[in-house]
């Protein structure tokens, strides 16, 4: 095949191919890459928002804007409140473990 033909065939392949293994990328690559980027942002964005919002001050709720930074909600998690008692449940677990030999004997 003459070199001219090869060059032409390659140009055609670049234009037509869905994914040529070398040479320029077709326009669909950029379109689909954009779609993929948006998908990944939509996948991670909301979760990252939640992680940032967990450092919200006591005055703010589950919405932006942030009303100051604090570890209030983490402290809240490990002290006894009406709705949850994480530390207490772990304590009960260890008490149960300490007692179990007594009960079985």
């Amino acid at each position, binding site marked *: 095949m003459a070199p001219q033909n090869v060059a032409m065939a390659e140009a055609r392949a670049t234009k037509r191919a869905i*994914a040529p293994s070398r040479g320029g990328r077709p326009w669909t690559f950029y379109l689909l890459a954009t779609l993929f980027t948006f998908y990944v942002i939509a*996948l991670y964005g909301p979760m990252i928002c939640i992680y940032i919002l967990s450092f919200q001050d006591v005055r703010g709720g589950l919405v932006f804007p942030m009303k100051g930074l604090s570890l209030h909600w983490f402290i809240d998690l490990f002290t006894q409140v009406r709705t949850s008692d994480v530390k207490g449940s772990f304590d009960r677990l260890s008490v149960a473990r300490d007692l179990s030999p007594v009960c079985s004997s």
Partner: protein
Amino acid sequence: MLVLIPFFVLPILVVLVASVFETDGFGGLIPTFTLANYGTVLTSGLTFNLYFETVKFTILTWFFTLILGFFVAYFLVFHVRNPLLAIGLFLICTVPFWTSNIIRMISWIPLLGKEGLINSALLRLGLIRAPLEFLLYSGFAVVVAYVHQLTIFMIVPIFNSMARIDKRVVEAAIDAGASRFDIMRLIIVPLSKSGIALGSIFVASIVMGDFFVTKVMSGGGSASVVGAFYEDISVLQYPGAAASAIILTVVLLVMVSLILRTVDIRKEITR
């Protein structure tokens, strides 16, 4: 196969038996044979509305996850040249799947809410005057949450079946002068049909069998089939709930068998 008996056949049988019993109204079951429970469920107009609502969400979710999942898989298989990079990007898609579904659903609330990120951004840009009400606690929010959770169930099987397509077939088609659209229509879609079918089964059965996302994201504005018999169970109407469960199972079986009729999955998997 034996593991199916205690974990699948027995529970179904228990539900089946409970669905033909009578209830004493206080959670007790009277062992008789009656089809009255089915009669009540099937003759109520509420059932029809519930199925309409659930099927609506199923079709919307299926449509968007299919479009998104198909093109994401297509991008990863045919456009990313480095196979290692393709697998890395594929893993990026699967990582959020390791966290709880509920956290991922709740995490849309600060974004979609009336004072959420999207509304405040649009207000600041001056695109809207008042916050958009339809973003949260609406059918829109339900579909967003489902698509967010379930697109991965489409990507994985479609990615698998696409990765098995021989690249030489595509190259031959290009050499023979096929256009991009022809390649898609005549090679890619027919050869990834088994993946599409599997993904559709996953998505359809999960959405039909779910009630929590619908309940939370619609703010109680929409009901679902499973949500309805969950309410039945909480007021101790076990036979009625069991009858609706059996009907839903039958509907799902019909749906899955219709999907399977379009593609011979056993042949495709062992290909």
